[in-house]
């Protein structure tokens, strides 16, 4: 059943991603939406897959685009189409899901609302003691720090901005704001790589576990690999943030599970005659949320099933930076001679002692994995450790040499073409190539001067040779050599004739 509540946008879809970012989707969010959630309002664009496990008769979906309303319609499901402020302020829901955030709940027809006002409108739908699942984009997240200046999308008739004091800035500010509004935050997650489809959710509890740094770093690195050109490599930035305890502060988005105070009704005025007590089963389901979701897999402390330790790449780069070549050779040899040889170094966790390399993804071609590490070394600015050109194939061959393996750069398999370039890396590449060209020229000049010296020496030796040939013993020797040559020719012609005959 689809109801037009007012303010709906005709010929508009948030779900298809043509007018702005894609709708909230992805397996990571799905694991937060496992039933039972009781009566649920799904507010804003969410991929249908996210709530398909919920009983449709308990779910109400609110979208602002008419196209989305028809796309979502299915038997039993209530679809409301229009702008949030048109919705009657009736606390009718056990759970309100707003994982797409607050910025696509009001239509172009509505007067602009502040972030607080929009959240108030949402909370008015929630029963006391009910739960809010809220997604919030971090306007100072890794994704924004590396982004090239964006072109405004159709949906940016007003633009979310952290200059706005009504919008909480930063993770701590967000939590304070929610608490002030009568919400008790039960779980909060750092979401990577984006609000719309996070593949990794990390709770602050799991981030506080230092032994999981490797597994979490590998997950974040996979998540933030850029699909388009960027200012700086988000993988280096995000994994660096993780190492520095800033994974939450610099996350592209946060996902919050919060409980509305059991009786805020007194403050909000007289409530309508609806059932206010939350369902205890819903409570259990929401509190039992995982500590992390990585690649579609829910992970809970203390027995996470994740390998404990740092990534091999971390160990390798640390050894490179302290110039510990023996350690570097041991690590490279252990990697390339073991079952994890075909796994990129950033996707291997070194556990132990005794040290063991645990692969987080299936193995591919070992030389491709080695080449990928060479690429990381060059892009990360570590290549000056080796006195060679900053060339991936060349460095791969040297790295193979460090494991005792003979490898020509020509035999190194081609790397995958990067889907995106980082502007910072391009500038570094330009500077490196300029330097290498200058060095090649200097070397050329040196060889040229050496060649001149050798030519002069050769000339001197030839002159001496000519002088010596003019002397009597010299002439005798020349005649002897000439005679021998003539003899050789004669013998050859005899042999040829004999064979021919």
């Amino acid at each position, binding site marked *: 059943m689809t109801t037009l509540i007012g303010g709906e946008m005709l010929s508009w879809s948030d779900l298809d991603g043509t007018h702005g970012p894609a709708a909230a989707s992805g397996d990571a969010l799905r694991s937060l939406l496992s039933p039972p959630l009781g009566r649920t309002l799904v507010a804003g664009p969410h991929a249908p897959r996210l709530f398909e496990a919920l009983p449709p008769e308990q779910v109400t979906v609110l979208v602002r685009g008419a196209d989305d309303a028809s796309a979502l319609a299915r038997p039993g499901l209530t679809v409301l189409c229009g702008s949030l402020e048109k919705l009657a302020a009736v606390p009718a829901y056990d759970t309100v899901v707003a994982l797409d955030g607050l910025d696509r709940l009001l239509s172009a027809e509505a007067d602009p609302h502040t972030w607080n006002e929009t959240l108030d409108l949402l909370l008015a739908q929630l029963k006391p003691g009910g739960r809010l699942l809220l997604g919030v984009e971090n306007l100072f997240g890794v994704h924004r720090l590396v982004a090239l200046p964006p072109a405004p999308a159709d949906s940016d008739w007003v633009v979310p901005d952290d200059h706005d004091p009504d919008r909480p800035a930063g993770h701590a500010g967000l939590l304070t704001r929610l608490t002030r509004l009568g919400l008790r935050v039960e779980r909060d997650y750092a979401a990577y790589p984006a609000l719309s489809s996070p593949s990794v959710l990390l709770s602050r509890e799991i981030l506080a576990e230092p032994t999981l740094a490797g597994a979490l770093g590998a997950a974040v690195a996979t998540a933030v690999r850029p699909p388009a050109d960027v200012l700086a490599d988000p993988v280096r930035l995000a994994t660096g943030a993780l190492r520095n305890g800033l994974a939450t502060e610099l996350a592209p988005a946060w996902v919050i599970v919060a409980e509305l105070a059991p009786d805020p009704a007194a403050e909000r005025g007289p409530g309508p005659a609806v059932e206010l007590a939350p369902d205890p089963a819903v409570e259990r389901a929401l509190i039992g949320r995982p500590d992390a979701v990585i690649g579609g897999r829910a992970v809970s402390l203390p027995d996470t099933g994740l390998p404990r330790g740092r990534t091999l790449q971390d160990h390798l780069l640390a050894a490179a930076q302290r110039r510990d070549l023996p350690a570097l050779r041991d690590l490279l040899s252990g990697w390339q001679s073991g079952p994890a040889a075909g796994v990129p170094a950033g996707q291997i966790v070194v556990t132990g002692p005794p040290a063991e390399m645990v692969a987080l993804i299936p193995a591919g071609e070992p030389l491709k994995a080695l080449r990928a590490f060479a690429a990381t070394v060059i892009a990360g600015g570590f290549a000056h450790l080796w*006195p060679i050109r900053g060339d991936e194939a060349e460095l791969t061959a040297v790295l193979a*040499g460090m494991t005792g393996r003979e490898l020509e750069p020509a035999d190194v398999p081609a790397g995958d073409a990067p889907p995106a370039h980082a502007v910072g890396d391009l500038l570094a590449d330009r500077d490196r190539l300029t330097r290498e060209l200058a060095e090649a020229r200097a070397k050329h000049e040196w060889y040229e001067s050496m060649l001149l010296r050798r030519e002069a020496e050769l000339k001197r030796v030839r002159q001496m040779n000519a002088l010596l040939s003019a002397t009597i013993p010299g002439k005798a020797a020349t005649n002897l050599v000439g005679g021998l040559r003539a003899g050789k020719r004669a013998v050859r012609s005899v042999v040829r004739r004999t064979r021919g005959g």
Partner: protein
Amino acid sequence: MECGVHHANHYYGHSHVLARYCGLDDTDPPRLHGYLQHGWNIGDGMAPDHEYVPGVPKFVWSERVRRRAWSLGRRDVYVVGAPWAYLIAMEPEPADAPKREGTIWYPFHGWEGQHIIGSHDGLIAEIRDTETGPVTVCLYWQEFRDKRVRALYERAGFRVICHGYRGGWWKDLDPGFLYRQLAEQRRHSRVASNRLCSAIMYGTLAGCEPAVYGDPMQLEREKSAFGGQARIVREWADMHGASLDQSVARRVAVDELGADRLLPPAELRRLFGWPSLREDPDFELTGVLTR
């Protein structure tokens, strides 16, 4: 013979030893694309007479020299260890080697450009007072050819030898130099000199008990680059004296010669720009070619 980037790479047959380690023809080592440290050094590892071409790698013996070179503005510096350490790795001392005896003594020498100033007689007296066993004195070829100097040491009852020419400008090169030096050192239980130098480091790594004592003498117009002899005595105090702590001395020699960080042949070949050995799989297994 093909030239290296610098003629000093072939001093003492260094590139010959490394070519052998790499499984290549050690009678005719290929061009080494870089500068190779050719003696124990308290500076940036390179000889002061080197002309540098930017971007050409500098291969040094030890991590300490690499750090120092970097601090002095050198780049493209890579620690490969001393050729001597490779030689010792390839030529382990046989279990049935004859018993070592006496001291091999290296008086501080000048070189082709600078001669030595000092009293050989005084030094001989100090050696006699200190050493209890037979003494072999090893002279640099210049002093060895000087009949007067040689006679001084011979009259003192010492055996006088010379390991050979070091060579230069791709002429008079002596690939057998280090082999002769190793064979001589292994005949002796002690190695000594009046200045801490390559030979003391070499001897220590070759299993001799090191000692540095006696008048350190002077070079004509000796310049104290990088702090000179005074700094050597101060910084490497553990290596000075007639009787040293063996384990400390060994540790110092291993560090200074980079003997604990030798490269696999494949890595060395790649960095030197030497040809690969793909046709010889046995070599990669053992690291050494039997010949």
